[in-house]
């Protein structure tokens, strides 16, 4: 390909525009994270709201014909929409986000993911996936011919406004009294409160402000990109990567990295177009190796585990041998009671969720990219079975191998950071796998690998027989379940637990906690791969959904609904979520909305999940009984002493 100056400068300009949006969005995410400690995943959806807001204002007469409303143009939108979206943000903060401030960071992320699903789902139901057009305002039509490149006026306008907004905000937060109050409010809320400042209100304004920025970005994006419900979906993961690169909590870092990464992305389109969609994530990986705190970030050493698990290891619900037998029996009966294909789906998902629980529940690391392991294994298995013609068991093994290698690599990169960072990093790394699979010729893009032969197990068991297939899947599940139980109840599992409970203390006892976490992560990826490979054989297909972000969210939802850190939680969660998806399938687009609502409700009201809540009940009863017995013993001793006197 010939690289002409026109091409080069043209792409640089596109990169600068994209970078302007990245900067504005990352700025909001960085402020919200820095001040509120919330990983605002819903930022992408709020950006989408901004774009739709502008479109609504323009369409007012069409949308509400009877009211005689005027059509409000771009300039009105530029003022009204950020305020409106900001106000909506304030409401979200007041009724949802505020509830999770004092919880582990993971919940903020989970809550905002639920909100995203609801918002995007609703718009999808109402407007469909197709985009709406929004014209460039009259005043900003036309452009300048700079000789080497044509610069449309509107794009110049976007760049100038973005720069003004970004650096204005930076100045506001870092250089003014208001900003210093804000910073103090997060570091020491009690002290600020004693100055007579209303801290909750301050935080609400901060969130509304960050969200307003997303709304503004949305309005500015409307004339450039399509206004569609999904427009915020990909950008939010990029934004998270930008914030990791810039260094979390660094506003300046977010702005500069946003602009620079947009341009780098543009340049990549010129020199190596295949990598354009992944270059930001690759840079993130590189930055993590060289400067774990990000380019402008300060070193942080926050250790915190997820605070969800209540399971006492002596609880009957945690007795793996017992449940292995029960699940085996129930599994053997299942194909005669329910549709076998559905039962197999549940088994694959249950194994996947149990694998995920190993890292989230037992180590306390919020991983958010397990679709990469599940999906890549599905693809490799499918490819090995249909193109290489490997026997079924070897095909699955190849998939598992792939997932294990990826797991070790991603783990090695991500283990350097904790909490929310860990989630954002695994999410971004998984996105590399998604784009790689989307673009590689052997994966057949949107079609996926279809008609995967089930083949003969060990050369003589024909898996095309539905029952043979079913019992093979059941065996794989039980094997995986038993293996996970063994890991959790091993000397290694004990150390994992201690890391989850108190990492600095585990270090002070001489454990190289990073190495333990890495091994656990790799094992978890490996088992997720086993689930994915088996799934590819059962359903005879590997498709893009398997590697997509939504699959990572699904597995998290299953684990959460069932009970994080409990033995049975993921299994129960898989049954619930799969049943729900099946029952709701008739509702079409509403499924996502309902799932999002369940996410939100779980985070707010059922953090321990179904099994966790049950464990809680049992454990309280056990403690009461034990204390009562102890009290009896003491009373008896007192009586004897009294009698002696």
């Amino acid at each position, binding site marked *: 390909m010939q690289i002409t100056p026109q091409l080069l400068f043209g792409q640089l300009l596109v990169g600068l525009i994209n970078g302007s949006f990245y900067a504005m969005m990352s700025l909001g995410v960085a402020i919200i994270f820095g001040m509120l400690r919330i990983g605002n995943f819903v930022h992408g959806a709020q950006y989408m709201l901004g774009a739709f807001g502008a479109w609504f204002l323009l369409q007012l007469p069409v949308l509400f014909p009877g009211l005689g409303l005027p059509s409000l143009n771009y300039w009105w939108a530029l003022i009204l929409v950020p305020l409106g979206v900001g106000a909506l943000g304030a409401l979200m903060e007041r009724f949802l986000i505020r509830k999770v401030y004092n919880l582990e960071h993971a919940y903020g992320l989970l809550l905002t993911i639920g909100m995203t699903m609801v918002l995007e789902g609703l718009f999808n139901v109402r407007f469909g996936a197709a985009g709406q057009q929004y014209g460039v305002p009259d005043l900003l039509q036309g452009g300048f011919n700079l000789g080497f490149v044509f610069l449309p006026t509107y794009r110049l306008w976007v760049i100038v406004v973005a720069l003004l907004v970004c650096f204005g905000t930076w100045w506001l937060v870092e250089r003014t009294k208001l900003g210093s109050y804000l910073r103090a409010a997060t570091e020491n809320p009690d002290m600020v409160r004693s100055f007579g400042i209303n801290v909750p209100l301050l935080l609400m304004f901060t969130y509304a402000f960050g969200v307003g920025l997303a709304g503004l970005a949305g309005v500015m994006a409307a004339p450039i990109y399509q206004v569609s419900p999904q427009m915020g979906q990909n950008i939010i993961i990029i934004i998270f990567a930008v914030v990791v690169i810039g260094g979390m909590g660094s506003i300046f870092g977010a702005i500069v990295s946003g602009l620079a990464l947009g341009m780098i992305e543009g340049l990549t389109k010129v020199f190596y177009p295949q990598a354009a969609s992944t270059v930001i994530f690759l840079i993130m990986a590189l930055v993590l190796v060289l400067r774990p705190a990000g380019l402008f970030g300060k070193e942080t050493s926050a250790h915190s585990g997820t605070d969800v698990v209540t399971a006492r290891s002596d609880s009957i619900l945690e007795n793996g041998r017992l449940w292995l037998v029960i699940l085996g029996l129930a599994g053997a009966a299942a194909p005669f009671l329910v549709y076998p294909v559905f039962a197999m789906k549940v088994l694959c998902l249950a194994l996947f969720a149990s694998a995920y629980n190993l890292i989230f529940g037992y180590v306390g690391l919020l991983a958010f990219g397990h679709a990469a392991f599940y999906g890549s294994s599905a693809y490799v298995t499918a490819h090995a079975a249909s193109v290489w013609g490997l026997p079924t068991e070897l095909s699955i093994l190849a998939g598992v191998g792939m997932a294990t290698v990826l797991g070790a690599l991603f783990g090695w990169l991500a283990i350097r950071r904790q909490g929310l960072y860990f989630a954002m990093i695994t999410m971004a790394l998984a996105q590399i796998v998604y784009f790689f699979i989307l673009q590689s010729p052997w994966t057949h893009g949107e079609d996926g690998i279809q008609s995967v032969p089930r083949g003969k197990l060990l050369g003589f068991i024909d898996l095309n027989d539905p029952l043979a297939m079913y019992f093979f899947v059941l065996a794989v599940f039980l094997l995986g379940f038993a293996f996970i139980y063994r*890991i959790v109840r091993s000397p*290694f599992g004990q150390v994992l637990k201690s890391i989850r409970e108190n990492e600095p*203390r585990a270090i002070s*006892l*001489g454990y190289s906690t990073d190495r333990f976490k890495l091994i656990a992560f790799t094992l978890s990826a490996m088992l997720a791969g086993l689930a994915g490979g088996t799934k590819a054989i059962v359903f005879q297909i590997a498709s893009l959904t398997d590697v997509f972000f939504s699959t990572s969210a699904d597995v998290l939802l299953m684990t959460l609904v069932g009970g994080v850190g409990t033995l049975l939680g993921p299994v129960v969660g898989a049954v619930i979520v799969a049943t729900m998806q099946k029952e709701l399938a008739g509702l079409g687009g509403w499924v996502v909305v309902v799932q999002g609502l369940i996410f939100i409700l779980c985070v707010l009201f059922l953090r321990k999940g179904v099994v966790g809540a049950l464990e809680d009940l049992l454990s309280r009863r056990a403690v009461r009984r034990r204390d009562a017995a102890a009290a009896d013993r003491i009373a008896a001793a007192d009586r004897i002493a009294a009698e002696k006197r």
Partner: protein
Amino acid sequence: MSGTGADYIIEAKGLSKQFMGFMAVQNVDLKVRRNSVHALIGPNGAGKTTTFNLLTKFLQPSAGQILYNGEDITALKPDVVARKGMVRSFQISAVFPRMSVSDNVRIALQHKLGTSYHFWRREASLNVLSGRVDELLEAVGLLDYRRHNAAELPYGRKRALEIATTLALDPEMLLLDEPTSGLGHEDVDRIAALIGTVAKDRTVLMVEHNLSVVSRLSNTITVLARGQVLAEGAYESVSQDPRVIEAYIGGADV
């Protein structure tokens, strides 16, 4: 003071730590004599915990050198230092809350079995440690609580559990950060007695605000103020030192 290097288990030279321009610890020289109880005292914010973090490598010093048994450990990681026999406690109680009391101790004991990476081995393989776990719990008076979750213990018992866990490693040297803070009278006495017993054949470096505990237990005292060593010596001499009195009154909040 005279003596060869072998007399000292730890020698820190010119230790400094800077937090974003603020010198929390400044050019501190600290020598801890083998098999002694050495107390580190000073007003709030003097840099005591930071010094602990530096010695145990939880923080990387901005400058200075740390020798442990004559070996330079300045570049090592905290878990490596712990495996060399220098084990710390934390200022706020550091137990594993949702593990049982006996599992808390066992997690430290299982180290020496060398099977901690064995994810394929049964947990029952750790049962060989039960006897030793019970001994340690007995020693700190927690045997009756062994099936409780650590989170359910009262604060004083948590601190005792921490000491039992630390002792399970059979460390050559213990660093205790305010082991009696937040405890009632009885608990203070019990923990102090425990430290006294423990220190018979080990080295203890402790941060402690309770001066009666300090005077009862320690052979040597180092006073830290504003990140620097203010005085060092036996309790009698240090407590008479006008600069120390001044620092404490100046610090006011002790």
